């Protein structure tokens, strides 16, 4: 209990930071193909569970918006891009491996 006040402040600050940080995510999918449908379901449930109220998830269908696929250099789909917080990360696949997704998002 004899911890320095400064330490306490730091801990609080970082906790608050993590709490306030908003995740900006983009999921690139291809229409209603099975992998895409699974990926959408999986990422939504992960976000709801771990990032409730502090995430923005944009789902982009590259069939509808191929220009965005070019802009983001998309080859493999589905792919999740973590735009923020920094650093940017990419995860390919149907997001069924929750552990890897969380790791990629920097949550665990």
């Amino acid at each position, binding site marked *: 209990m004899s911890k320095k006040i400064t330490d306490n402040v730091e801990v609080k600050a970082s906790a608050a930071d993590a709490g306030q940080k908003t995740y900006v995510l983009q999921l*690139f999918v*291809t229409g209603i*193909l099975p*992998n895409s449908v*699974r*990926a959408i379901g*999986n990422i939504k449930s992960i976000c709801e569970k771990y990032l409730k109220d502090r995430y923005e998830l944009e789902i982009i269908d*590259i*069939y509808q918006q*191929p*220009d965005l*696929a*070019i802009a983001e*250099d*998309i*080859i*493999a*789909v*589905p*792919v*999740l891009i973590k735009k923020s917080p920094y650093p940017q*990360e*990419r*995860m*390919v*696949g*149907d*997001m*069924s*491996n929750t552990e*890897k*997704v969380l*790791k*990629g998002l920097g949550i665990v």
Partner: protein
Amino acid sequence: MKSLIAKKSEKDIFKFPKAPTGIQGLDEITFGGLPKNRSSLLVGDTGCGKTLMAMEFLVNGIELFDEPGVFMAFEEKKDELVLNVKSLGYDLDKHIANNKLYIEQVKISPDEMVETGKYNLEGLFVRLEQAIYKVMAKRVVLDSLDKLFYGLDEKILRSEFLRLMTWLKKMEVTAIITSENGDPFLTHKGIVEYVADCVIILDNRLTNQVGTRRLRIVKYRGSTHGNNEYPFTIDESGISVYPLISESIQQASSSKRISSGIKDLDDMLDRKGFYEGSSILISGTAGTGKTSIAASFAYSVCQSKKVCLFCAFEEAPNQVIRNMSSIGFHLEPLVKSGILTFYYSRPTLQNLELHFLAIKKIIHEIKPSVVILDPITNLMTEGPNSDIRSMLTRFVDFLKTKQITVLFTAAITVGSIERNPSDEGISSMVDTWMMVQDIEVDAERTRSLCVMKSRGMVHSNEVRRFIISGKGINLSPILTKGKMPVADSKRKIKEHENLSTSKESIGVKDSSR
């Protein structure tokens, strides 16, 4: 039986649809180009010219066959690519501006990617489709496969590659996909080769410090193709493949004669000289007068108002001109009037194919009736003999189809006269073979000349004394007793007589045709 014949003739009529590459020589060995609306694989190590060949395929498609193209670059940046091929005379910017070419640069960094489950490469398909529709492409290049598939799961890779091939077929584009040679995926699993309709392997081999690019068609579904390895070059005019087949078949044989420029030598050759469009070899040790004979021939050809190309690999043209004027052949005015052209290059400067390519270009320009290569043996140091021989054969065949008389000199070492392996290789190839050598007569070096062979004419079997003087070249009989040259005072007297008489009747200036 009847139906069988019918089927056979039907087969003869059917022609496999092909997309011509426009690359010199490649269309010949593939009998028309790459399989149309299918995928071909271009395999080779780094620096073999895969990207360049693929790009030439696209550019030719646009310029020659009005087929727009898409280039998907996984390795190089767009600007770099444009710049790299600019040196070969391709103005990609122009084609891009005209909406005939679309370059899509794809950056792939698999290290940044985490796999979280099943996925596919649909993104690639979507982008490719976009690109194809953008320019209404008929040709597509993916460069290179390894970069695209690097680090991907093998199962996904396999299924996606198969899907890509079928998809490209469905899109009705003729595609080239490049790939590294040493890739374990290719060599071990072999699915790429299995799936592709045409597989071409490029290779850049180094022998005796001179690199030679080669190309081989390993597989071509539904079509015959040349099986051999063909050398190819990359220069400022792009890629050129040298197939043997294109140059050997239709040779017309002329019965016209051309004077050697030495009257006495013409006498030895049926009194008429060489055949026009034949190949002539003069071999001999150093200092036996090979270049002099060659120059005399060139001189006589030019005198009869025919264009001659003198390729010097040993001496610089100025030196040849100076040296030859000392024996009465004034070549300089001929060079000035343009009837005699010199090609001079150090053999070590580039590989043999490039030499031949350069010579061929000059031939196309000046259209000579005689080509002289002096000496051919200098080129032989650059590369193994079998290569040289096949290249030389091709070159001679090329000249023969053009009805150009070719004379080459070959320097041989003293110990290996008549048994020089490289020399033998050439001598079987040529139509007329003359040997000049030093023989020792009465402690005196004497030049001698004999005609070893001369196809299609009655030639002398005599070994003649071969005299180079300020007034040119002439030949006189060697006085012999039995078979050996005899050195006695009598011979000397006779020789002097011969010399003095022959000196008066030098026949180098006029061609006796």
